[in-house]
């Protein structure tokens, strides 16, 4: 897969792909402090009670984890929108329940062999964070399973369970893009939200 196959010249550095934005030392420090806070919280939850000893232990373990298992920095250029975040959570919960029941029904229906399909869904916003979060939500909702992710092109390869016709494929594609829209509206930047209104070009390499 050559980078930029079938893509315009500015594809890599448009608003959709600021993947390796230089993060200043201050930003990196702040991210690490936030991560340390979460690690300490997890440590306290694991022990089940808040005491000075546990707090100190959590800080020591948290610093050790951050020092010995450093993660690549995640660039977060957007901002949190509580309303859209709530929409994302609520629709996720509703879809989780309805789709769980559906897959469970398919599983126990006697003598029924479901057919599947693998579809490629190019996302409109190609940041790592959007790719990861959309894939996560899609994966958690039953009936769809992420098989592969093309990080450079921003394409998710989704396996869909219980396909009965071409209509189901189009519906699944729309569902993935709807999830992406909700994710971007919840955490994306203004430029990324605008990007949602441009139709997703087929960036897959034609063979």
């Amino acid at each position, binding site marked *: 897969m050559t980078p930029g196959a079938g893509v315009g010249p500015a594809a890599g550095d448009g608003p959709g792909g600021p993947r390796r934005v230089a993060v200043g030392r201050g930003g990196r420090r702040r991210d690490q402090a936030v991560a340390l806070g979460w690690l300490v919280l997890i440590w306290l*939850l694991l022990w089940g009670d808040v005491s000075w000893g546990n707090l100190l232990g959590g800080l020591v373990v948290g610093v050790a984890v951050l020092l010995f298992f450093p993660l690549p920095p995640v660039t977060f250029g957007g901002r949190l929108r509580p309303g859209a975040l709530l929409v994302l959570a609520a629709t996720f919960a509703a879809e989780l329940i309805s789709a769980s029941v559906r897959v*469970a029904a398919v599983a126990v229906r006697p003598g029924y062999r479901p057919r599947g399909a693998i579809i490629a869904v190019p996302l409109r916003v190609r940041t790592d964070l959007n790719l990861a979060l959309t894939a996560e939500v899609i994966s958690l909702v039953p009936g769809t*399973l992420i098989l592969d992710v093309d990080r450079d092109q921003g394409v998710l390869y989704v396996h869909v369970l219980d396909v009965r016709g071409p209509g189901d494929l189009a519906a699944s594609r729309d569902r993935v893009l709807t999830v992406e829209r909700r994710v971007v509206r919840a955490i994306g930047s203004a430029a990324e939200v605008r990007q949602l209104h441009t139709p997703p070009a087929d960036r897959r390499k034609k063979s």
Partner: protein
Amino acid sequence: MTGLVADWLGAACLTAGALLSLAAGIGVLRFPDVLDRMHAATKPQVLGVLLLLAGVALRLRTASDVGMLVLVAVFQLATAPVAAQMVGRAAYRSGRVDRALLDTDELADR
């Protein structure tokens, strides 16, 4: 009174979660190939585990236990998709996917 309501809600959550987990198990046994089985193994089970955790939390009702259960739920939600994707990708790349069961395969021409 609130205790009684919480107990009943907890019991309902536990029953529903157990039924979903049972359906997931049946799906793993009955589905024809790896990808279909991954759906059954990771999905109704996600909601099943969440319901079981909610049921246990409603029964226990102590802060430290609920904290631990929330932690279990968060890690379950964070890790299940990753595991499913790794297994699914490994199955696809090693050719363990039954193509007769697929309507379309847009990953094939990549």
